[in-house]
């Protein structure tokens, strides 16, 4: 969002409110849109993201499901193929394992396998992010799994503004889209204009301009990167923070241009590094900006361990403002 937009948009919403508003607007616009998930009707979702929707749209469009992730994901695929616009809610990103066959072998492939005759326009909303002391089965950031699959799109908003505009585009998209929300960020506030808008999938956003180092950050890590940029400013290092916003489609051009401009790049993503998102992004940078780089691309992500419960253990598994800033200083030869 430009500075001008930010200045005129006085209204502040939380990320959760922005998501709810996007859903409500799309449900008003298109009667085919409906939501499936656990404890989403009267309860409004355990994170209260969906409160008020059943009151406005009724129990035929906001459906409480049994705890049957594979089943209701499959129903969404079939409904999407036959004229509906399902949005499914997978409470914790850790539960996507249960949905994998439906997403990977069914939703992702039907368009291609049918020679373009069927399509599955559905949205799966789910969460990522650690540090909630929720242990190994409620803390993972597994978005890379979906990025690996042709036929799926993957969206990773980092602000209320982006979340709203991207979710509206995801719902209107003709393909299966997986939309990851950082559960630690639901209460994050940010400007969201009153007027309707959408943000196209596949357009990165420069969250902060800088000249010495580029920090490419996704979802939960964008705020961390911005915090790190502030710390770096104190050390006289000017950091640019680039948010791809969607991992597929990927706006390679904006990432490469920033890399060429600063010549030093850190990629930060809360998923696992090995065979993960940071590996892909680092590869995009080195292929596109190799001769402009002063240093190898630095990758930062979750430590390669199941997320532990105990706070002093969990805290060292994810990048922080401090560790990102330290890495940037080292990259700039200033440590």
């Amino acid at each position: 969002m430009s500075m001008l937009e930010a200045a005129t948009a006085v209204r502040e919403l939380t990320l959760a409110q922005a998501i709810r508003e996007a859903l409500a607007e799309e449900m008003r616009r298109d009667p085919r849109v409906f939501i499936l998930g656990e404890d989403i009707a009267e309860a409004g979702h355990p994170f209260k993201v969906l409160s008020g929707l059943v009151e406005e749209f009724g129990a035929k469009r906001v459906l409480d499901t049994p705890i049957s992730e594979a089943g209701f994901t499959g129903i969404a695929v079939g409904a999407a193929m036959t004229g509906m616009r399902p949005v499914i809610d997978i409470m914790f990103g850790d539960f996507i394992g249960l949905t994998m066959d439906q997403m990977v072998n069914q939703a992702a492939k039907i368009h291609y396998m049918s020679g373009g005759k069927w399509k599955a326009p559905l949205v799966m909303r789910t969460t990522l992010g650690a540090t909630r002391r929720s242990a190994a089965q409620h803390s993972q950031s597994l978005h890379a799994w979906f990025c690996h699959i042709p036929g799926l799109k993957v969206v990773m908003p980092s602000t209320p503004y982006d979340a709203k505009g991207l979710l509206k585009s995801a719902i209107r998209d003709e393909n299966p889209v997986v939309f990851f929300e950082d559960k630690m960020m639901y209460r994050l506030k940010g400007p969201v204009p009153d007027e309707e808008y959408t943000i196209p999938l596949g357009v990165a956003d420069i969250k902060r301009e800088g000249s010495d180092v580029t920090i490419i950050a996704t979802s939960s890590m964008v705020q961390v990167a911005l915090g790190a940029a502030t710390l770096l400013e104190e050390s006289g290092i000017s950091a640019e923070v680039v948010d791809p916003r969607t991992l597929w489609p990927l706006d390679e051009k904006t990432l490469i241009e920033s890399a060429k401009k600063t010549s030093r790049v850190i990629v930060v993503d809360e998923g696992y590094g090995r065979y993960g998102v940071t590996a892909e992004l680092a590869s995009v940078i080195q292929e596109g900006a190799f001769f402009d780089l002063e240093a190898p691309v630095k990758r930062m992500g979750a430590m390669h361990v199941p997320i532990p419960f105990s706070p002093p253990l969990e805290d060292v598994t994810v990048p922080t403002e401090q560790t990102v800033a330290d890495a940037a200083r080292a990259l700039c030869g200033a440590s």
Partner: protein
Amino acid sequence: MTTAVNPSKPDSRTGADLYLHMYRRMLMIRLFEEQVNDLYTRALMPGLAHLYIGEEAVAVGVCEALRTDDYITSTHRGHGHCLAKGASVDLMFAELLGKEVGYCKGKGGSMHIADPATGNLGANAIVGGSTGIATGAAFSAQRLGTGQVAVCFFGEGALGQGVLYEVMNMAALWKLPVVYVCENNMYNEYTHFSETTAGDILARGPAFGVPSEAVDGQDVRAVYDVAKKLVERARAGDGPSLLLVNTYRYHGHHVGDVSREYYRSKQEEQQWKTERDPIRIMGDWLVSQGLADRAALDKLHGEVKAEIDHGVQFALAAPYPSPDKVDQDVYA
């Protein structure tokens, strides 16, 4: 360092001894969970806490019918199962607070207590996630000829998971020694089970040829009797069974779930607490049978309370793991 494990040995306990023991175990779970509630609300316990208060007779009645080496799998609401199977209060609290001496070195926390010494294959934070594990343990017991039985505890919410029916089918085909214990506390998270569960729960077992029974989960003696029958059936090689235990959780889905009026009434909660409390029911029965008097029960209460208090102090005083332990235990 650890308090003595008091393994369940049904064969060695009979009559009054057994009943008093079951009463004590239920009380221990109740007081343990009250402390968890307290620690959590005082911000001394990180993460999530799903309390078992109200459901004590289920875990105790079932586990009392098991040998120490019999297996259990547990759930996100698992403290009661672990304690009933013989877990140490000290090490449980230590794990809940993320301390190094805890059952899982602080790596698991409330939803993942595991303890091979008491046959506890692990609590599980994925609904239905342990149904395969329990059935696989029963497979091992059968193949290795150990005579062990596996009990799979799960909430009625797990009836929504397809894997349950896949493993139940195989358990029936292969006559595996597993008892599926469905704890129906009437609510998934914030949704009444009738809104998510079609038809008759008890009819699901017989569809696979798995004998199924229902029991009043507030009556520990009734739970024990039927569990004993089903466990012995499994041990004798006659295959799996399904036990539907009707019960109620007094507190919220987790400690943070305090405003519950939108999904259940205060009156309903009050009614269960005053009329259907498993500990009161058992206490009254013990007194009415002359197996204990009020003074004896009070004394027991004091003893259990002291054990719980000791556990809390032990856990609070215990050190956290050092951060360099974080990448240990990833691989065997």
